[in-house]
C-alpha cells in the first residue's frame, strides 16, 4: 500500500480492476444495482477508490451523474480511505442524554486527532458519529470494528482503546479442544446486538471454554433478544431436572462456578479434580466474594420479574427460549401454522377482511390502518405485485425492528408470506438498514431454511401460492423509512420521496402495486390468525389494537426492549416496568417517537399508549423510541438535538424541509449559545408550524414535533435561554465550572482533567482555568466532596 514503486502501482491497478470486474460479474451492470454494487466495492476496498469507480463507468450502465448523485446521498459510502480500525460513537438519543458528545471529544483528544481530521496520523483509527447503534440501554455506546462497548465514560476511553488493542492480540491465540461428556439440560444465552455489546460473546466463548475444561457437554444455545437489556449478559440455566435458573449480569469469571453448581461432569476423577480446582479458584480470587450465584433467588430475579410482569409478547412471542434460527423449534411452537391455515382455509380477500377487522395499524410511525393498505394492493389486477418489509429503522433511539429481525426472523417472514397471499403478490423484499449486519445475516439464513422446507419459493406448502423474498440493504438514510423514498433507493436512485398520489399501493416498486409494511406490523399477523380475531381485539384501546414494542431508555433504572399492550399508561411503563427514574431523580418528560415525536411532560404521563392520544398531544408513536428524561435534562437542548438529526437526514428536495429546518436549527443554536432574542422564539414557532404544514413528506411534516411540543410544555425554558440561563447546565456555552470552598485540594480533579485546565496544587482550593476547560464533566465525576459546580456565565452566583 505504501509502496511508491511504479511497477507495483500498475500491478495494484490491475488487481483493483480484476476485483471490480469480479464484483460487477456477481452483482450486475444495470443502473438499479448501483447501491449493492457500491456496497460490495466498499466491503472490498473499505472505501470507494477512484480507480474502481472509473471501472464502473466503463463496464456498467451507471454513469457519472448517477454515481455522484447516489454515492453522496447515502451516508454509508466513504470517498476517502479510513484507518485500520473504525470507531463509531453512537449519538442516538439515549447516548446523547448520557453525554455522547463528550465521549466523542475524548476519543479525538486521546487519539490526538486535530482540526477536521477523522483519522489518526498512523492510520490506525478513524472515528465517526453514527445515528444509533441500537444499544440504547447501554448508553453511551461505542463500536470499534465489530466490538461494541457499553457505558463508555469520557475518562475511560483510553481503557477502551487499550482493551481493544489487547484483544486484537489475544484473538490470534488458538484454543484447545477437549473431550466432554454429554449431560442433559441446556444453557440459554441472549445474543442480540445489545447483549453482544455488553459482552455476551465473551460469555459464550467462556461457556464453551469452561465446559470444555470441565468436560461438561451441555447444549449452549444462543437465543434472541431477551429485552432486559440492562441486565445482560443474561443466561438461563436449564438443569437436568428442567428447572430454570436465571443469572443476570454474569461475568466471564463466574461461568465456571455456575456450570459447576448445576452440572456434574462425566468421570469421577474429573469431578474430583474439578472440585479441587474450583475450591482453589474460589479461595484465590476475590471475584467470587460478590458472586451472583450466592444471592437469594428473589434478589436475582425480582427486578426481571417486575420488568416482565406488565408485558404481553405478540411480536416477540417465544421470548427468551426460541433460538432465532431454529426453524424446527419455531414450527414446534406453532410457527407457520398461521401461514398454513391461511393458504389452505382462507381466500385472499378473507385474510384482508380479517386484518381490516383486527384494527391493526402500521407500527412504523403513522399508524395507517394496515387492512386499508392491503385492500388497495389486493384490488389491483396486476399479475405482479411486491410486498416490502420496511426494516429501515432510523430513529436514533429505537431498535425494536432490529431486535425482531435478529431474534424472530421466521415470524417476520411468515407475516410477509401472509401479506403476500392476501394481496396477491409474488415477490417480497426485506429492506434492512446497513447498520444492522446481524439482522441481515439472520434473515438471509432464515430465508434459506424456509426455502429448504418449501415455505418459500414455488408452490408453498403444496399450494398454488408462490412467493420469493430477497434482501436489500439500506445504505444509511433516515428518509428511506418513508415508503416512496425507500422504493426510490431500491430502484437505484437518491432517496427522494415522491409526491403521492399515486400511492405505492397503486404504483410502487418498478411501477407495480407495492405493499410496504413495517417489521413489527408483520410480526403481529401470525397471532391474529392463530389466536383469532376476538383474542386480538381484546388487547388494546378502541382505536389502537394489539401490542407495541418500545425501546425504553434514557434516565431509567431498568431499560430495555418491552412489548406492552396498547392502553397501558406511560407512568405504568416507567414505574412498573422500568422501576422509575435512574438515581432517584425526578421525572421531567418522556420523549416518545424520536425525531418525529415529541416530549410529553411528567404531569401528562398518565396518557395511554394509543396512536391518537399521542397525536393529540403533539407527539407521535413514531417507531417506538421511549426516552425518559429527568430534571437534569435540558429541553431546548433536546429539541436542538433532534433538529440537528433531521437537518442532517433531510433529503434536501423540498424547500421547507431543506431550508426551513436549517433556519429552525440556526435559532436553536443561538438559544443554546445565549445569542437569541425573545422574538426568535416566535419566529421558531412560526417556522415550525409552516414546516410541519408544507413539507412534502413525513420526515419534514413531523420534524418540527420535538420543537413544537417542547415549546408547548416547556416554553419558560426557552425564555430562560434567551436570558442566558440553562438551569440544567446542559448547554455548555451558558455555563462555566467553578470550584467551591468545599474543596480540600485532593488533586483528583487535576489528575482527571484531560486538558490540564486545573493546576496541580495539593492542599489548596483548586482553580479551573475557564479558557482551557472543555466542560467535559470529568472533574465533577471525580470530586468526592461535591466541590465543583456548573454556574451560569451571565451571573457568577451559583445556581442550585
Amino acid at each position, binding site marked *: 500500500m505504501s509502496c511508491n514503486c511504479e511497477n507495483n502501482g500498475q500491478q495494484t491497478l490491475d488487481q483493483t480492476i480484476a476485483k471490480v470486474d469480479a464484483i460487477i460479474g456477481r452483482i450486475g451492470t444495470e443502473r438499479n444495482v448501483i447501491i449493492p454494487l457500491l456496497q460490495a466495492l466498499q466491503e472490498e476496498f473499505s472505501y470507494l477508490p477512484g480507480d474502481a469507480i472509473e471501472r464502473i463507468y466503463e463496464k456498467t450502465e451507471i454513469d457519472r*451523474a448517477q454515481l455522484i448523485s447516489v454515492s453522496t446521498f447515502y451516508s454509508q459510502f466513504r470517498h476517502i480511505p479510513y484507518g485500520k480500525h473504525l470507531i463509531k460513537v453512537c449519538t442516538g438519543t439515549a447516548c446523547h442524554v448520557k453525554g455522547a458528545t463528550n465521549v466523542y471529544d475524548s476519543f479525538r483528544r486521546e487519539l490526538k486527532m486535530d482540526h477536521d481530521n477523522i483519522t489518526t496520523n498512523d492510520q490506525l483509527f478513524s472515528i465517526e458519529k453514527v445515528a444509533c447503534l441500537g444499544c440504547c440501554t447501554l448508553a453511551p455506546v461505542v463500536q470499534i470494528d465489530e466490538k461494541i462497548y457499553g457505558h463508555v465514560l469520557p475518562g475511560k476511553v483510553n481503557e477502551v482503546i487499550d482493551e481493544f488493542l489487547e484483544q486484537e492480540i489475544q484473538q490470534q491465540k488458538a484454543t484447545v479442544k477437549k473431550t466432554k461428556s454429554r449431560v442433559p439440560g441446556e444453557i440459554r444465552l441472549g445474543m442480540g446486538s445489545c447483549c453482544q455489546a455488553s459482552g455476551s460473546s465473551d460469555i459464550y466463548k467462556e461457556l464453551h471454554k469452561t465446559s470444555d475444561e470441565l468436560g461438561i457437554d451441555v447444549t449452549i444455545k444462543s437465543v434472541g433478544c431477551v429485552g432486559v437489556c440492562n441486565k445482560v449478559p443474561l443466561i438461563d440455566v436449564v438443569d437436568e431436572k428442567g428447572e430454570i435458573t436465571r443469572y443476570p449480569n454474569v461475568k466471564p469469571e463466574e461461568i465456571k462456578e455456575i456450570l459447576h453448581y448445576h452440572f456434574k461432569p462425566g468421570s469421577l476423577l474429573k469431578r474430583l479434580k474439578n472440585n479441587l480446582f474450583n475450591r482453589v479458584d474460589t479461595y484465590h480470587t476475590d471475584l467470587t466474594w460478590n458472586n451472583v450465584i450466592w444471592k437469594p433467588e428473589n434478589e436475582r430475579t425480582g427486578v426481571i420479574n417486575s420488568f416482565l410482569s406488565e408485558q404481553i409478547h405478540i411480536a416477540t412471542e417465544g421470548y427468551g427460549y426460541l433460538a432465532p434460527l431454529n426453524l424446527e423449534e419455531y414450527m414446534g411452537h406453532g410457527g407457520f401454522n398461521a401461514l398454513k391455515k391461511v393458504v389452505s382455509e382462507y381466500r385472499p380477500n378473507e385474510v384482508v377482511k380479517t386484518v381490516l377487522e383486527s384494527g391493526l395499524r402500521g407500527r412504523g410511525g403513522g399508524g395507517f390502518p394496515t387492512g386499508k393498505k392491503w385492500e388497495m394492493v389486493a384490488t389491483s389486477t396486476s399479475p405482479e405485485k411486491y410486498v416490502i418489509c420496511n426494516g429501515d429503522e432510523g430513529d436514533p433511539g429505537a431498535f425494536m425492528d432490529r431486535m425482531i429481525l435478529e431474534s424472530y426472523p421466521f415470524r417476520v417472514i411468515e407475516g410477509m408470506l401472509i401479506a403476500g397471499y392476501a394481496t396477491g403478490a409474488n415477490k417480497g423484499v426485506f429492506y434492512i438498514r446497513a447498520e444492522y449486519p446481524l439482522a441481515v445475516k439472520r434473515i438471509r439464513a432464515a430465508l434459506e431454511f424456509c426455502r429448504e422446507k418449501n415455505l418459500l419459493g414455488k408452490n408453498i406448502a403444496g399450494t398454488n401460492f408462490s412467493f420469493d423474498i430477497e434482501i436489500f440493504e439500506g445504505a444509511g438514510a433516515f428518509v428511506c423509512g418513508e415508503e416512496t423514498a425507500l422504493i426510490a433507493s431500491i430502484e437505484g436512485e437518491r432517496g*427522494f420521496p415522491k409526491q403521492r398520489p399515486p400511492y405505492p399501493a397503486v404504483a410502487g416498486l418498478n411501477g407495480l402495486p407495492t405493499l410496504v409494511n413495517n417489521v413489527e406490523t408483520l410480526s403481529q399477523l401470525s397471532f391474529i390468525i392463530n389466536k383469532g380475531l376476538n383474542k386480538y381485539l381484546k388487547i388494546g384501546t378502541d382505536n389502537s389494537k394489539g401490542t407495541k414494542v418500545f425501546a425504553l431508555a434514557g434516565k431509567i433504572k431498568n431499560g430495555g426492549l418491552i412489548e406492552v399492550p396498547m392502553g397501558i399508561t406511560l407512568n405504568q411503563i416507567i414505574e412498573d416496568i422500568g422501576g422509575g427514574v435512574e438515581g432517584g431523580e425526578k421525572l421531567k418528560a418522556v420523549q416518545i417517537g424520536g425525531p418525529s415525536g415529541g416530549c410529553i411532560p411528567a404531569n401528562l404521563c398518565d396518557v395511554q399508549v394509543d396512536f391518537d392520544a399521542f397525536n393529540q398531544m403533539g407527539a407521535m408513536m413514531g417507531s417506538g423510541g421511549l426516552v425518559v428524561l429527568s430534571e437534569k435534562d435540558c429541553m431546548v437542548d433536546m429539541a436542538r438535538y433532534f433538529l440537528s438529526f433531521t437537518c442532517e437526514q433531510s433529503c434536501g428536495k423540498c424547500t421547507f424541509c431543506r*431550508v426551513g429546518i436549517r433556519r429552525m436549527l440556526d435559532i436553536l443554536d443561538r438559544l443554546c449559545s445565549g445569542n437569541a432574542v425573545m422574538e426568535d422564539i416566535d419566529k421558531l414557532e412560526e417556522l415550525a408550524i409552516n414546516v410541519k*404544514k*408544507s413539507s412534502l413528506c413525513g420526515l419534514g411534516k413531523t420534524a418540527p414535533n420535538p420543537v413544537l411540543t417542547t415549546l408547548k410544555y416547556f416554553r419558560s425554558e426557552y425564555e430562560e435561554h434567551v436570558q442566558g440561563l440553562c438551569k440544567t447546565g446542559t448547554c455548555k456555552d451558558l455555563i462555566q465550572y467553578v470550584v467551591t470552598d468545599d474543596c480540600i485540594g485532593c488533586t483528583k480533579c487535576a489528575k482527571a482533567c484531560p486538558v490540564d485546565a486545573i493546576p496541580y496544587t495539593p492542599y489548596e482550593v483548586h482553580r479551573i482555568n475557564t479558557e482551557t476547560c472543555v466542560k467535559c464533566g470529568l472533574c465533577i465525576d471525580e470530586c468526592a466532596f461535591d466541590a465543583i459546580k456548573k454556574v451560569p456565565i451571565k451571573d457568577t452566583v451559583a445556581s442550585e
Partner: protein
Amino acid sequence: MQILINGKTVTAQEGETILKIAERIGYSIPTLCYADGAKHKSSCMVCAVKNTQNGQIIPSCSTVATDGMQLDTESDEIQQIRLMSLELLLSDHRADCEAPCSMVCPKGLDVERMLSFYDAEDYQAAYDVIAGAFQLPEVGCDSCKAPCEKACRRGTVDEPVAIRKIIHEVVDLFADKTDLGGKDKFNIDKKLFQSKLGRFSDDEKERLKETVTTKSSCLHCACSGKSDCKLREYSSAAGIKRTRYGLSSTLPVMQKEHVTGNLWFEQAKCVRCGLCVYNSTNGFTFKDRGFGMQVVIPTENKGNVSEKLAQLCPSGALYFSTKTPVEK
C-alpha cells in the same frame, strides 16, 4: 370530473394538474421548480395550494386533480406559505441582484456594467455607459465622494476597485473625439427586489483574492442571470424587502463556472429545483443531501449538456454570457 377551486366549480380532464386547471380559469400561481414541457419534481412549494377537505398543503404543479377535490389557491394562508417558501429560498441564495456600486451612484451610472466592458477591453462600450449617465465632458465623479468605492465588495476582500480612476482612464481615451453616436442610457430599476449577498467569510475572501483577477479587479457582483430570474420577479411581487432569516449557505459564493458554449453556472444562486438535473442526461447532478445538497456539473459531463438549459433555470444560477472567463 368536477372540482372546486376557490368555490368555483370547474370541469377537469383526467390527469390534469391543479396548476393547469387553475390557470385555465384565470388564477395565476407562481412556480419555480416547474417548467412547461420539461421533466420536473415538485420541490420549491412556491405553487402551494390547499386541499380544503383534508387541510393538506400540496404542490399544484404535480398534483393531479381527483373528482370532487376542493381547493384554495388564493387565501391569505396560501399567500403566506408561498411568501415563506420564497423567504427561505432567499436565505440560502447568496447573490447580489445589482452590484452595490451601481446601486449607490448618485448619477445612476451602472458602474458594474461599465467595468464589465472595461474588463473585456471593449472601451467604446464602457465609454458609452459613462456617457449615458454623465454630462460629458464633465466627469460626474469629480464632485462626488465616491460612495461606489465605499460600497465596493472588492474592498472587503482587499482593495476596492479604483472606480474613479478607471472612469477617467476610459473618458480620457476618447477625450478628443466629439460625436460618438449612441449613448447607452441604462437605468437600474431600484423598485425591484434586491437580493443581498451578505458578508464574506475569511475563507471566501481568501479564495476570491486569489481567483478573481480581472483587469479592474472587479468581482462583478451584479447577477448575470437577473434578466429572467423568476425568483426575483416573485419576490418583487410579494413585496419582500429582505429575508427575515439569517443568510447562510454552504455553497461557494461567486464561483462562476464555465459549462459549455456561452453557458455559465453559479452555484451560490441555485435554488436546487433540479430542472437542469432532470433535463440533462449524464450532465448536471445532485451531490450530498439536506441543506448541504448541491447541484454540480462534473468536468467530464460538461459536453453532455445543452445551452438551452439556461432557459429552464428559475434563478440566475444558469445563464448565458459572452463575457470572457473572470475566473481561472
